[in-house]
């Protein structure tokens, strides 16, 4: 079987997503964070796939380390960064009530 076909089959495998609360395909987890995988991908898939191997090969070691071995951001960190980014996109909206 061609490698590409194997990937297509892997992408179609489904597991329950602990963030969303329903089944999602591996292809979703592989690209959940923009073009990068979800930081939970190892936990959710390691019982079914050699997921570390797959993702290291796809991402390269540097991107892999950044996703899985960095300190994950807290919800408040995410929020503040999103506020900063949104203010830049929308202006500071100083006319607020």
């Amino acid at each position: 079987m061609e490698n590409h076909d194997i990937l297509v089959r892997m992408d179609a495998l489904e597991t329950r997503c602990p963030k969303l609360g329903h089944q999602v395909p591996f292809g979703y987890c592989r690209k959940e964070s923009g073009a990068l995988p979800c930081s939970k991908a190892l936990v959710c898939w390691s019982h079914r796939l050699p997921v570390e191997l797959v993702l290291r090969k796809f991402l390269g070691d540097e991107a892999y380390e950044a996703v899985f071995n960095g300190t994950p951001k807290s919800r408040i960190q995410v929020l503040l960064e999103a506020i900063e980014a949104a203010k830049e996109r929308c202006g500071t909206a100083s006319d607020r009530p």
Partner: protein
Amino acid sequence: MEQIKVFLDESEMPRQWYNIQADLPTPLRPPLHPGTGQPIKAEDLAPVFPMNLIEQEVSTERWISIPEPVLEKYALWRPTPLYRARGLEKALGTPAKIFYKNEGVSPPGSHKPNTAVAQAYYNKVFGIKRLSTETGAGQWGSALSMACQMFGLQCRVFMVKVSYNQKPYRRSMMETWGAECIPSPSDRTQTGRKILAEHPDSPGSLGIAISEAIEDAVGDPHARYSLGSVLNHVLLHQTIIGLEAQKQMEKLGLYPDVVMGCAGGGSNFAGLCLPFVRDKIHGRNVTIVAAEPTSCPTLTKGPFRYDFGDTAMTTPLLAMHTLGHDFVPAPIHAGGLRYHGMAPIVSHLLEEKLIEARAFDQVETFTAGVQWARAEGFVPAPETNHAIAAVVQEALRAKEEGKEKVILFNWSGHGYVDMSAYDAFLSGKLTRYELPEEEIRRALAATDAFPKP
């Protein structure tokens, strides 16, 4: 007939929320701003939250009065009943007495409206016309939709597209309550439009939906953003659960030895437990346990850090339990509880050893949930199953020790909109192994031929 429910009269509903910040032995470490390294100021949050809620976020007042219009709305389902789980006690053959607070009786079916209603009210009195939020599975989106309808606010929910398509009934609930439920990425925001231009078929993600909801709020002076867990004011609003439970236990002449709840962002756990943590601070002997999934063991495995999130030192500093780089994940997956970062208050209490945490795997939690449904009738939410697994463990321990422990836990929601998860569990799909590993390993040996994502 033996009494299994304790009701409070509406007039007995607590009139104030309890703020643990007044009683903490050491104060919470404030979150620090990524740019300045200084504690986050009200202005940093002002673009997305109204000032009256930001004031609650930082308040150290012990008791905060619940506004009358909020109490009126609460009265539609509050006070919630305290049940004794006689069926489960019998099934386990335990001498323990098991009590639970049934938060599944709210219209959307969970504890979430306790804060949704309060947040909608405070936004309304601050002059806000519309709230914006994100939702994954749909629990929070539906709670906020109902709350906005109650106070005449418009509500816009950015629902992760893959969930929007998979969970049509949560979307229908939101629309029934008058909210606009938009699949994310959408064309409503610059973030969404950019993603759609590059990936028209993007299934979305919580990260994208959060960015869209925040951009939507920041770009409209009449709109604000709303979050359903993690933040101090959200936990504050949930304390009505524990305050009611204390009155109900008093009516029975009992005090719990163990208090438990499942912990995702920390709000339902904190809602039940914070009033008991107060008692503990003042010398009472009570064990307080947060139950979390082994797939996301923030409290049990994540280190408590006050650190930058990256080597470039650009992210905010925050003291919390988080899944750091030394965490080796268990080879299983679990359902329901979503945040990898725990509420700062809950993280702090763990550091102070005022609470404990235990992790449970997915199969164990669904096994407990099904055992519960067969013994007690009600079908729990997958998140709630984590608390039930903790209760079963504690009740069996009491049996071994021959102790008549009193266990109290928060039954945070029903599972009737999550039956597909039960389907998967009952048909053994949650652990199914589909593609032979050998085949994959062989294929991966020649990965150069793989297409780039």
